[in-house]
C-alpha cells in the first residue's frame, strides 16, 4: 500500500504517542494526589477533633486510675483507630512520626491486661504520644491549606 505521509512524520507521531502515554500517567498520578489532598483537607480536621476528645477522656480517666482503667483502655482503642484512619489521608513525608505513635498505641491496646498498666505511669506516656499526634496533625492540616 502506498503511504502519502512521509516516514519522518510517522516517526514523530510514534514518539509523540510514547510521550503522550507518559504524560497521561503523570496526569493520573497528579489527579490522585489532588483527590487525596482534598479528602485530607475535609477529613483530617474531623479526625483530629475526635482524637482531642479521646485524649481529654483519657486525661479524665487518668485522674481516677485504676478505677477508670477500662474507660481508659476504650479511649486508647478509639485514639488508635482514629490515627490509623488519619494515616491513610496524610502525605507520605509526614507519616513517620504518626505511624510510630500508632505502633505504640496498638501495642498497648493488645497488652492492656498486663500489670504495668495497673499504674497510670505507662498510660501517661501514651497520653503524651496522643498529644504529640494531635499537634502533628494540626501542623499537617495547616500545611495542606497551602497545597
Amino acid at each position, binding site marked *: 500500500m502506498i503511504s502519502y505521509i512521509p516516514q519522518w512524520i510517522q516517526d514523530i507521531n510514534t514518539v509523540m504517542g510514547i510521550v503522550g502515554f507518559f504524560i497521561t500517567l503523570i496526569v493520573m498520578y497528579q489527579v490522585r494526589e489532588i483527590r487525596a489532598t482534598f479528602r485530607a483537607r475535609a477529613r483530617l480536621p474531623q479526625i483530629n477533633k475526635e482524637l482531642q476528645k479521646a485524649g481529654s477522656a483519657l486525661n479524665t480517666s487518668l485522674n481516677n486510675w485504676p478505677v477508670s482503667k477500662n474507660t481508659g483502655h476504650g479511649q486508647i482503642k478509639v485514639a488508635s483507630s482514629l490515627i490509623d484512619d488519619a494515616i491513610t489521608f496524610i502525605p507520605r513525608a509526614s507519616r513517620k512520626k504518626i505511624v510510630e505513635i500508632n505502633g505504640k498505641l496498638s501495642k498497648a491496646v493488645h497488652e492492656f491486661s498486663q500489670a504495668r498498666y495497673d499504674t497510670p505511669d505507662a498510660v501517661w506516656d501514651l497520653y503524651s504520644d496522643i*498529644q504529640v499526634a494531635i*499537634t502533628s496533625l494540626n501542623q499537617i492540616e495547616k500545611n495542606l491549606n497551602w497545597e
Partner: protein
Amino acid sequence: MYDSDDKTITLLVKLNRLTSLGKINWRAEPPPRSIIRGTDDHIPIYMSAIYKGRTFGLFLQRYQSYDGEHDRLYWSERIVLAIIDQEENVLWEIENSSSALHDLFETVRRKVARVDDIIDDLINDDHDEF
C-alpha cells in the same frame, strides 16, 4: 512538627501528670496586677502553683476582639499558662489552643475545686440515706 511544640507538650503533660498525682498543689487566687493592668480583659479564674522554684499561673482569659466586617467588638476566651517572677511579672506564657493545655486546665480546676471529694461526699450521703 517543630521541636518547640514537642517541648511545650512535654511540659504541659508533665505538669498535668504531677498535678494528677498530687505532687503539684495549685490554689485559686486573684490574678497578679501585671496581667490585668491596662487591659479590658476579664480573668474569671486564676490558679497558681510553685514547681522547682518557679511560679506557674494558669488562667482563663476573656478578651475583646474587633470584627471589621460587622464593625463590632466580640468576646473570646483562651487558656493561658504563664511563668511568673517574684515581682509578679509574666516572664513567659503559652496561650495556644492545644488540647494538652485544655486538659491541664481541667485537671487543675478539678483539683482546686476538689470535685472528686464533692462527688464522693454526695455518693456517701446517698448511701447513708438508704
